[in-house]
């Protein structure tokens, strides 16, 4: 399975449990996002006389971000196949690519936020912007966490090689990354597309 000895039954069970536990964690994270979505759904009209989403957002930019994230999800998946096959260099390439794509998504979001803030549309402006920044910003924080995780994992893989423990870490990482993609789809739909309907 991996270049070291085959994992014992004990370890296979531990892996199964760890992945399952991580899955439950992802569900709790999803529930946290659901609160942010609920708040956005309730408060998105409360602009307090300020600009609406339609006047503030750039839909093309959001679409670009979506596609970048989608591609990164794909590269991450392909990287995972390489990891299960034990091909270290391919893992480094594909996950490296995921990292770069994630970083460019983050740059795009950072750019969007900084323009908004420079024009005086901050989290303090009104309830609509508060909920917008909280929702999109929380997703951004998760992306940062994911990037950090990719970087550290790749560092360890370079140092220690691709052992079964690392494959498990990568499996969790890829779950996390796909999950962020799914959350973003809903942000794109409910925050950005919805504003232009």
């Amino acid at each position, binding site marked *: 399975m991996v270049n070291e000895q085959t994992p014992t039954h004990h370890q296979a069970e531990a892996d199964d449990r760890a992945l399952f536990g991580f899955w439950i964690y992802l569900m709790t994270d999803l529930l946290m996002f*659901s609160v942010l979505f609920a708040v956005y*759904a309730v408060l998105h009209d409360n602009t307090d006389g300020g600009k609406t989403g339609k006047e503030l957002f750039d839909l093309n930019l959001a679409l670009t971000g979506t596609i970048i994230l989608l591609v990164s999800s794909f590269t991450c998946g*392909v990287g995972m*196949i390489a990891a299960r096959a034990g091909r270290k260099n391919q893992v480094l390439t594909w996950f490296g690519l995921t990292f770069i794509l994630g970083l460019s998504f983050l740059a795009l979001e950072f750019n969007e936020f900084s323009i908004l803030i420079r024009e005086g549309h901050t989290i303090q402006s009104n309830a609509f912007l508060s909920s917008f920044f909280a929702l999109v910003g929380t997703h951004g924080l998760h992306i940062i966490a994911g990037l950090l995780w990719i970087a550290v994992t790749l560092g360890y893989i370079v140092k220690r090689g691709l052992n079964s423990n690392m494959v498990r870490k990568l499996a969790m990482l890829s779950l996390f990354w796909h999950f962020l993609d799914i959350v973003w789809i809903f942000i794109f739909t409910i925050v950005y597309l919805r504003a232009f309907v």
Partner: protein
Amino acid sequence: MKDSSANDSKKPIKEHGTTSSYVAGFVLSLIFTIIPYYLVINHKFSTSALISTIISFGIAQMIVQVVFFLHLGRGPKPFYNIVFFFATVGLIVVVIGGSVFIMNNLHYNMTPSEASKHLAEKEAIYQVEGTLTGACQKILANHVVTISGGKVTPHHTDARLCDTLTFINQDSRVSIITFGPHPRHETYSGESELTVKKGKNKTITLNQSGMYQYHDHLDPTIAGDFIVTK
């Protein structure tokens, strides 16, 4: 930490994707992103139809990603993770749906100025401690608007303050009159929407002067306006 006899039946089966499944998922996701984008940019449908369409595409895409990227349902049995996923989705529906259900209902009943105006009108309270509430003391005249065959007659009504306006629904379905040009929903005289069942009528008192538009929430082509002068 369980000894090995426990789970011998649970042999790990192929739970990981292949490159082709990732490619399929990727292409489908891309399509499901571009279509709603295109629909929104070109305003293909009416507002409510468009919103439900894009949300459906969002859900479709989620399913695609869950199946092709997360490989839900291909792990070892029993599928606890699937159960958890669906339970979570259900709970999210409760959290978001419940919040929207409750808060909309609250706003409908409780926006303070509208609620008090509504109440003043219903209870015929003309003034509180010397301040006029905006409710009418005496009704002057009545105007009638008839909805039939998907049209409003007359399309335009001129009225004076403290007249009344009656909506008569002669269509075969319910009509929900909301105020403001489509798609905006505003309130008039404390009412955010008037539900007029088929064959029935509803009357409002015109206690705010100015020009107002109204439309049927279920079919925005049914629309009209009225001007209230002092």
